[in-house]
């Protein structure tokens, strides 16, 4: 307990995690899409979660607008909501599926996996 104190965690107040990338496992079979998706049957998509609080960290690569909005929110939370924790960099995945003509198709779908999160 003494150790956590030294790290400056405040007692009794649940600290909200800052904006960061979290796990999100997508299972096409559970979605009921496996009648047309051959592969993959599941994949790791990740998602962004957490607060964008003042001051914004540089790795969140905020836009100038996000910096202003976060500043306004920190001064008067009732006047302006905080900026949003969203994916800022995404990558594609390959999907093998059956199209409406029952042909087997390979396609590279963009923006399917979160690589980085940021505040916008």
């Amino acid at each position: 307990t003494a150790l956590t104190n030294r790290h400056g965690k405040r007692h009794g107040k649940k600290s909200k995690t800052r904006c960061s990338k979290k796990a999100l496992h997508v299972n096409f079979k559970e979605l009921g899409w496996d009648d047309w998706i051959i592969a993959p049957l599941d994949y790791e998509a990740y998602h962004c979660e957490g607060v964008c609080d003042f001051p914004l960290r540089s790795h969140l690569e905020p836009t100038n607008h996000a910096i202003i909005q976060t500043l306004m929110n920190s001064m008067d939370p009732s006047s302006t909501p905080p900026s949003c924790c969203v994916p800022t960099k995404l990558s594609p995945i390959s999907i093998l599926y059956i199209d409406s003509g029952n042909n087997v198709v390979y396609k590279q779908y963009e923006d399917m996996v979160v690589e980085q999160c940021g505040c916008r």
Partner: protein
Amino acid sequence: FQSAAIITPSAQKRNREARIPHQDGQRSSKFFRDIFPSSHPIAGHPKEDPKDAIVPHEYMLSIYRTYSAAEKLGLNASFFRSSKSANTITSFVDRGTDNLLHSPLRRQKYLFDVSTLSEKEELVGAELRIFRRAPGGLQTSLQRTGLYNIQLYPCGSNRLLASRSLDPLDSTKSGWEVLDVWEMFKVHPPRQQHHQHQQLCFQLRVTLSKSDTEVDLRQLGLDKSGRSQQDKAILVAYTRSKKRENLFNEMKEKIKSQRTVDEKEGKAAEEVSLPKRGVRGEGPRRRRR
């Protein structure tokens, strides 16, 4: 197809194990079985006729395997020469049957329904892949020198579309013949027979290179009888879409096509079950909503 597989040592071991020859000499891949277990809905219930069950060709599985492995390494699949910078690769399975009127088999037709090929996507390449079976017992008559000349034409035209030579020694082993047919899309855009179905038709013949005599295609294992789905010829179209593909588009297309199939079946079933009109009291039974 240039082997572009990026195989990790463990996969190498797995791949070596995976090449389990089937009784009829067909290779199958454990990976195929991994992603296509018999419980998979697609394998589980073949559409209409078991013969037409939707089974991906090994070529499509190897494309998926190679490019998804490249993605995991942060490489963009469209950089591979074999993908021709396409981000969509569609395989259409041959719907033609042997022309049994002629015996011996001098010509072979290949018919493809390419109606799902999107006009919004740019076609960057197309090839016809034909599986040549090992000819089996007829081999003796083939002991000859000189190459075979495989020639491909659009149906109803004698304008040579593509050709390649085949060594008699190679013809004793089974293998895939790949012919570039991109030209076909440029010169003969798919004919609109019905506004839904766009057909592409190819005709193939093989001659002896030194003379123009045509060879019986059965001797070269190019007949179609008794082929499994994975041994049928496929037309592979490489397309590139500039616009970002929306995952739900495929879903909507699927649902739409499924609904039309259901409606057709419903109508047919209704016609069969409706009693003939004209006899009082025997009119159609009102269907409970």
